């Protein structure tokens, strides 16, 4: 293929969702996460799973941390940097009495810079619109949820939500790109010369 014919670049993401931390401790029996990779219209998935559900996990010696180590691997091709892939993580809890409840949503931007990156994102949860709703959520243990968590990745309807945040998710992700430089893109920070 001639140099002038390159119009598409490839990006490969390899990493895992390491753990979830709730600072005041975890009182649920089991936690699990679901992730979804969301991308713009110019992007095209080449390989990898764009959604997944993790194992049911319990905390260990650290009462604030639940380790998942859930692998996320995707290769995508695109003609445009706009619509760069994002990862939406949903953390849910499974208890005997209250059943399956939501613990929060986290939104990560998959790294646009090549290399390995460790990222932390806070977990946000929608709040009820009324005081009665909040009281019912406390009483029954059923938290308000979003019908489609992917709306958090576009941000267009965020203004309708009322949220609260508690806890955070840790992600380690490596990005390797092909032909991004050939197309004229520069995403490298300047190197400081001592």
């Amino acid at each position, binding site marked *: 293929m001639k140099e002038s014919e390159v119009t598409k670049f490839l990006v490969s993401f390899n990493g895992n969702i390491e753990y979830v931390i709730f*600072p*005041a401790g975890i009182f649920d029996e089991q936690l699990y996460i679901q992730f979804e990779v969301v991308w*713009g219209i110019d992007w095209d998935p080449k390989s990898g799973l764009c959604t997944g559900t993790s194992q049911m996990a319990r905390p260990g010696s650290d009462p604030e941390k639940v380790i998942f180590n859930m692998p996320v691997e995707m290769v995508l091709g695109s003609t*445009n*940097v*706009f*619509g*760069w892939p*994002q990862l939406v993580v949903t953390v849910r809890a499974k208890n005997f009495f209250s059943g399956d409840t939501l613990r929060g949503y*986290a*939104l990560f*931007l998959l790294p*646009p*810079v090549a290399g390995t990156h460790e990222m932390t*994102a*806070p977990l*946000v949860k*929608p*709040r009820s619109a009324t*005081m009665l709703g909040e009281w019912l959520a406390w009483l029954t243990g059923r938290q308000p949820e979003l019908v489609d968590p992917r709306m*958090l*990745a*576009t*941000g*267009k309807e*965020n*203004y*309708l*939500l*009322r*949220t*609260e*945040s*508690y806890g955070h998710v840790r992600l380690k992700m490596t990005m390797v790109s092909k032909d991004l430089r050939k*197309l*004229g*893109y*520069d*995403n*490298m*920070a*300047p190197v400081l010369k001592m």
Partner: protein
Amino acid sequence: MAELHIIGQLQSASDFNDPNSLFCRYSFQTGPNWTLISGLSEGQTAAGKENFKKNIDWVHPLDLHYVCKGIQGWPKIILQVSCLDSFGRSWVVGYGCCALPSTPGYHTIKVPCWVPAATTVTERLKQYFIGGGHELTQTDIINLGSDRFKLITQSKGEIKLNICIVLRNLTQFGVEYK
């Protein structure tokens, strides 16, 4: 044509000391040389409640694609933080403005905010008991430096943005940014 991509998140607000929920309206402003190809240059975040660290986490995604013919009028972001109380009333609690970085890569930008202050005793008592705040009628003052000497302002908290800048073809036009 030279292009600029801004990808990232409007992450959080800290030190606002407000018991109500806060939300942020943002707007990206550029000069006439710049054209927005894709993405929303304006938006509003969800109304978030303070967590135990006194921060409000919004996690609002930003993704913009600009094309430019000249470097004058480099994009800047204008932020307006408002609070939403339990009755559903809202008023402005902070204004801030920041020019976006010109080097590619990750950047964590912290924008300190200010709000027009209550000057007389009655205004301060009103704000304390009933709530409410002072808003600017001409929002140009937020990003321009002229005519500010008449304004008395109160310092507020800080807004954090995590963005990544990706540039395209700027070196072809002789622009040195590294």
